[in-house]
């Protein structure tokens, strides 16, 4: 192993500072010996300082200082901070044990061999899925533990364009290869065209008969404060209406009755408003309702990657959908675990895109409660979550803190960076500082699904149209050369 630096200053078991002959990149892996054995470190921060060039100065002085600095190697101070990942021997066995004693100041630090790193980062076996390679070591493949995702949840937090959905697609593909069950709540119709063999494209439908009055009010777009309208809807939605063949017709007839014969003007007005709302909802969102739709879990398939296209849903409707789906899944998985008949007799992973819409911080939505519940209890029943968001600070912190693993990239907003540091103790101040400078596909993996924190370059998934921006110019061009009008072709004079 080649020495790259000498350990300096205050040395602690979990954190060392060193000075180096040449620049060492952040994310690089180092090895130093302690009494407990060799320890793997990751470079969190590195700086290069010239005392001659440190102060503010005029151009001519700077010129001279530069020349002086060039011929005087002592003027260049290259120092770095590295954090212990763990004892190498233990890491190889899959345990993270920190050294109890620090290396000695003056000890040398060396670059870790690819071989050692591979033993730590690339496990073989069915439960491990390769997702990319170490950013600083392109020869070292990195695998993640799907079992950890399926029991301890995962959060993918990254800015737009940094490869969140690529990473999710990658996981979906790996899950599919293992006959696993996954449900992806696809908010932007991004996952339909994935080249995954076991992909099921689902256009979820809500059956209004099965919704509670409040849920129905939300999905048809009754305003939240419109209490009279909500109360009236609740009163009308009795068994008779729910079971009526023509559900909407029956509901509307009830409303018309009140609109015409209501006791007071207020009531008649409320009924008329509701009629408008129902008509509008059917006009705009007609296709998402299906009076014959079965429960949501019957619409998704076990041992498939189910992509639920909710792009035509409003936020409120998607929330109702997600909360219903999770409730049904949790019940079903509980049955499965108890040995009763269940639709899903093996664990299910539910991935939620734009998670901040469903579990926002500081307010409660339809899903907040059930998502929290799944986050807390899901592992017992083999129901886990993958939350995907580009604005982690807008996510409910309690839910995020239940996530066992994190994939993080390119967060520029300070609030988001701080949030990440708060909820995961493994993203240090220094590593956090490099978050904004990560390029697309470069991600930090921390938590129980990796043996040790890793800075990786994720593999690219085929057939993924996300990550790519829309090529507007060529699409406009395409629209120009559109098909000839049918109406004209039919007339031959």
């Amino acid at each position: 192993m080649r020495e790259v630096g000498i350990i300096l200053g205050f040395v602690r078991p979990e954190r060392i500072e060193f000075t180096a002959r040449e620049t060492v990149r952040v994310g690089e892996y180092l090895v130093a010996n302690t009494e407990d054995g060799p320890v793997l470190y990751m470079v969190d921060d590195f700086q290069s300082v010239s005392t001659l060039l440190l102060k503010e100065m005029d151009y001519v002085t700077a010129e001279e200082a530069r020349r002086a600095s060039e011929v005087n190697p002592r003027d260049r101070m290259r120092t770095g901070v590295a954090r212990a990942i763990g004892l190498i021997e233990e890491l190889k066995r899959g345990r993270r044990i920190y050294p109890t004693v620090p290396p000695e100041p003056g000890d040398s630090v060396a670059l870790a061999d690819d071989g050692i790193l591979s033993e730590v980062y690339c496990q073989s076996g069915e439960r491990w899925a390769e997702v990319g390679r170490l950013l600083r070591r392109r020869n070292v493949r990195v695998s993640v533990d799907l079992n950890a995702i399926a029991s301890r949840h995962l959060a993918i937090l990254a800015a737009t364009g940094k490869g969140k959905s690529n990473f999710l697609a990658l996981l979906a593909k790996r899950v599919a290869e293992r006959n696993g069950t996954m449900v992806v709540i696809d908010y932007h119709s991004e996952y339909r065209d994935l080249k995954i063999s076991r992909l099921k494209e689902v256009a979820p439908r809500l059956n209004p008969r099965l919704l509670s009055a409040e849920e129905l009010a939300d999905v048809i777009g009754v305003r939240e404060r419109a209490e009279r309208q909500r109360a009236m809807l609740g009163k009308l939605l009795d068994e008779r209406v729910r079971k009526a063949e023509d559900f909407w017709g029956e509901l509307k007839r009830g409303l018309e009755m009140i609109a015409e014969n209501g006791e007071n003007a207020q009531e008649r007005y409320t009924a008329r408003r509701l009629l408008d709302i129902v008509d509008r909802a059917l006009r705009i969102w007609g296709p998402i309702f299906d009076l014959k739709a079965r429960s949501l879990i019957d619409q998704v398939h076990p041992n498939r990657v189910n992509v639920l296209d909710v792009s035509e849903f409003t936020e409120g409707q998607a929330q109702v959908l997600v909360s219903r789906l999770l409730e049904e899944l949790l019940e079903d998985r509980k049955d499965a675990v108890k040995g009763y008949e269940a639709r899903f007799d093996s664990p299910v992973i539910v991935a939620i895109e734009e998670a901040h819409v469903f579990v926002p911080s500081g307010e409660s939505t339809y899903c907040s409660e059930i998502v929290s519940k799944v986050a807390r209890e899901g592992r017992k029943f083999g129901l886990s979550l993958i939350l995907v968001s580009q604005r982690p600070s807008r996510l409910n912190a309690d839910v995020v803190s239940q996530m066992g693993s994190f994939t993080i990239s390119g967060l520029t907003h300070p609030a988001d960076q701080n949030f990440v540091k708060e909820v995961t103790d493994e993203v240090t101040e220094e590593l956090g500082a490099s978050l904004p400078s990560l390029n697309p596909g470069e991600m930090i993996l921390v938590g129980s699904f990796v043996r040790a924190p890793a800075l990786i370059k994720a593999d690219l998934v085929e057939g993924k149209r996300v990550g790519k921006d829309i090529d507007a110019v060529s699409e406009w061009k395409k629209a120009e050369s559109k098909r000839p009008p049918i109406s004209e072709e039919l007339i031959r004079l």
Partner: protein
Amino acid sequence: MVGHISDTHLGAFVGRDEELREVGEDVNEAFLEAVELFIRERVDIVIHSGDILDVPRPYGDALKVLLSGVRKLREKGIPFLFTLGEHDVSPIPSMPYPHLAHLLGLAEYVGDGAPREVKGLTVVGLHKYKKIDREHLVERLESIGSRVGSLSGKKVLVLHQAIKEAFGPGSELTVSEIPRGFNYYAMGHIHSHFETRLGKALLAYPGTSHWTDVDDPDECGALIVDLSGDEPQAHWVKLESVRPKVRIEVDARDLEKKLRELVERESRKRPVLWMEVEGEGIDLRAVESRLAQKYVIRKLVLRQKPKGGVELGHKEELDIDAELRRLAMNAIGDEEVVEYALGELLRLLSEGKAEEAVRSLWEFWRKRYGMESGEGA
């Protein structure tokens, strides 16, 4: 003056709704009546805004009526300008039948977007564009709009489309997509009479000249449009050949009164009747026989009255066991046997204990018929 007619649906009902065949004759007659009206009113030209025929492959009568109508106009020196509606155009690319009139020199097709000067008027039209071709339609209209300034005289645009502002979401066009600069917009497709001003210009649908559906208006007609002034004036004339139609929903309790009223009503022609009686215990055949002479009965049904709080579903839970017992009773007819078969025997068999079942069956047989085991075998 312009005679404006639309949605004549010549040949309607024939071969499609034979019960109303005689109404089909009224449909044709209404068109000829409009022709007479136009001649009487001395219009300069006649514009037909499409849906001339009811189906793209009509029976010969429809064409005979069309050609005789336009010939009459021709003899009086009144040009007949037309466009095509979706009912005129077959799904197989081919020449639409109404174009025969053009080929015979009896009429002029204006649905191709090219302006034509006729008697000092400039007429431009487009044939029907389906909604799927909306973009093309809008493009064609933009192109027409860009040329309208160079046209002379009073200008008329002929279209067979619905307008969203007036007829809702199914429409192909919004008012803003209709090019300005014309004096009169001769519209077709919508079966009700409708007029609106676009600035000084007038946009009008004469509506169908004869209804073809129960939801169409009862009264149908054509427009006489005076383009001589600054603002066009339209005068809608009701056509008398139109068959009266009656749609009634009546409570069974008021039926007798209604029937008497219907029977006493006098009409030029036997009206077509759609009737729904709400209630129970009505002999529809008797009702029919009382009305048949005076009405062409298209629909006569009895509808259950929704009670206050309709009870849907079963009053009692469906009991599968009881049902099974009933069926078994029907088949076997012996309570003891049924009891045994559905009880012990069924239990053993469904648990897959075949041998035990056979033993039990012998035992049952032996007890019942007093046979010793093996004796009767």
